[in-house]
């Protein structure tokens, strides 16, 4: 049986703003991830998916704070470690790649020196061996001319190549967990397909766990094993990927799947989810989705549904299933 790599219980993240108001960006997220699994987190902007990932890295930006919960990486609760201890984990055991490879690489250093920084910091290899290691990891992420690319500056590379350099940098220390935050959103579709293939291939080759954050349900279907659907800071549905697409339960998931124009066939008219995505300031009482839900009942506006487990592994936060 696979071993548990990461488990997160009842995570809460709040932002205390200058006017004293407290906005809860993430409310009670829980999930677990086995050693070689891929967890997809999907949701729209502002739903808290990126904050959840940053919490695992302990990188939630100020004035944000993790106010409750625990994040276990193997046996260690990451939230109780000192900053010093955390620095030995970040980039070594847990790595992250970001959406925009243009702004997350430093424009004034070559790719080589940026990758070397991680190697040296974690003492993975001696400086003399670092170059060979850098070139082999660049080769592994599918860069055709590793030597030349290593000595390039980020602006000299295309978007897809930059994202490959980011992936190389994240993987050079052989982490056990890779967090990818919208890794292909800034890329063209054909390049996106290549990067997804690459991530999937590397993950099984290195048998690491992966958390993939995206707003694109197609990408989740492509490489995730299980999926969390988030809305307004909460988990709405949590299910294995096939289960989610074959038997979506939460009205939000059902509507979201219907609302996407399909490439396979032309529809007369798209199903619409009315209304707007709520901001943190005006999250509706009761179920946060009830004003936009086509199956809402009177009690949805007052009663906050708990996450239930109607089927094995398949959890849903909806009063329809309570």
């Amino acid at each position: 049986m696979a071993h548990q790599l990461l488990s997160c219980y009842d995570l809460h993240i709040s932002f205390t703003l200058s006017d004293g108001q407290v906005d809860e960006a993430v409310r009670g997220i829980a999930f677990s991830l086995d050693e070689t699994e891929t967890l997809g987190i999907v949701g729209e902007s502002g739903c808290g998916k990126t904050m959840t990932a940053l919490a695992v890295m302990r990188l939630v930006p100020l004035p944000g704070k993790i106010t409750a919960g625990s994040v276990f990486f193997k046996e260690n609760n990451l939230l109780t470690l000192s900053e010093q201890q955390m620095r030995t984990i970040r980039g070594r055991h847990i790595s992250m790649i970001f959406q925009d490879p243009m702004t997350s690489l430093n424009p004034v250093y070559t790719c080589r020196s940026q990758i070397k920084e991680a190697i040296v910091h974690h003492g993975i290899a001696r400086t003399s061996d670092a170059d060979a290691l850098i070139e082999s990891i660049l080769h592994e992420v599918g860069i055709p001319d590793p030597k030349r690319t290593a000595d390039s500056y980020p602006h000299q590379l295309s978007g897809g190549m930059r994202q490959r350099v980011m992936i190389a940098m994240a993987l050079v220390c052989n982490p056990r967990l890779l967090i990818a935050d919208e890794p292909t959103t800034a890329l063209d579709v054909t390049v996106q397909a290549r990067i997804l293939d690459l991530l999937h291939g590397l993950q099984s080759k290195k048998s690491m766990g992966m958390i993939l954050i995206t707003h694109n349900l197609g990408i989740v279907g492509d490489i995730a094993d299980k999926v969390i659907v988030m809305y307004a800071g909460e988990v709405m549905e949590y299910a294995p990927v096939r289960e989610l697409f074959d038997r979506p339960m939460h009205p939000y998931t059902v509507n979201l799947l219907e609302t996407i124009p399909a490439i396979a066939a032309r529809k007369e008219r798209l199903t619409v989810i009315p209304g707007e995505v709520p901001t943190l300031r005006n999250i509706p009482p009761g179920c946060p989705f009830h004003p936009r839900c086509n199956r809402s009942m009177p009690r949805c506006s007052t009663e906050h549904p708990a996450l239930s487990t109607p089927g094995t592994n398949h959890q849903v936060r909806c009063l329809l299933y309570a």
Partner: protein
Amino acid sequence: MPETAALQSNDIVVNVNDLCVHFPIRKGLFGAVAGFVKAVDGISFAVRHGEIFALVGESGCGKTTTAQAIAGLLPATSGSIDLSFDNMPQRTIDWKSADAAAAKAVRRRMQMIFQDPYSSLNPRMTVKAILEEPLIIHHLGSRDERDRRIRALLDRVGLSHEYLNRYPHEFSGGQRQRIGIARALATDPRLIIADEPVSALDVSIQAQIINLMQDLRTGCRQTQLFISHDLAVVRHMADRIAVMYRGKFAEYGSESDLFLHPCHPYTILLLDSIPVPGKGRKQRGGNAAEEIDRQPEVAGCAFYPRCPRRLDKCRATVPELREVKKGHGVACFNPAGEYETT
């Protein structure tokens, strides 16, 4: 496209003929021209009255440049753009030499919707001022008439009248895009050029805007030039589609031609690249040379370095756009599917 000659000219709203937009690359102290970036390199197409014509392609393929050249926001290097609205006789508009009055008359009938609803609305203007500005510029209506018109516009795009005196920052992305659409509709245009109008929006909001744009088409027989990189959105919206690659058309045709019988290897690659919800992992073919930067300039087909179906002659000769069937053209020596030549 050759088919356009057969059509009655009053059915055509935009006729683009051999359009080129080249940008000079300047080098050195005195800015000597060292070469050209051929952003748009000899494309021709016609958009018929009441249809949605889509230009699709990846970043840098020239789709936005084409739209901006038609709208007169960028000067065309060569080629002609003929526009015809209402019963106006079709006329060639040369944005470089057109006099101000003629250009203004054309602009009234042609409006744009932009991708980013955050940067395309002036943050210091209220919704009312934003919607009124085009009416004032084109001297349309008295103050009362303008007021009624603005309210009607808000109704059309599904926004409440209460919003008239609010500023753009008070709105969500979807609402802002509705304001942008209302502004484009203000002067009662015949042609809407929509440049990635839904790309910046959340998934649940995208569908609302797509439906709204379709209503506008059916409601007022509006013609739309729709630019997108999202093939699923394009399939849903467009009647006819042209796939662009490096400034040229790789393939064009009707929605069913392109999605059911794609011929150009690039179109096929694009279609294969899209992850589909619930379909699981796709096996993808394709050539690994895909995203190599600084791809060598080839004398022949621009897609040659990435093409899985390339032939020897593709390296040296540029394939001409030819029709494999009426209304379905492809620029390839070795197209796939039922039109295979080998």
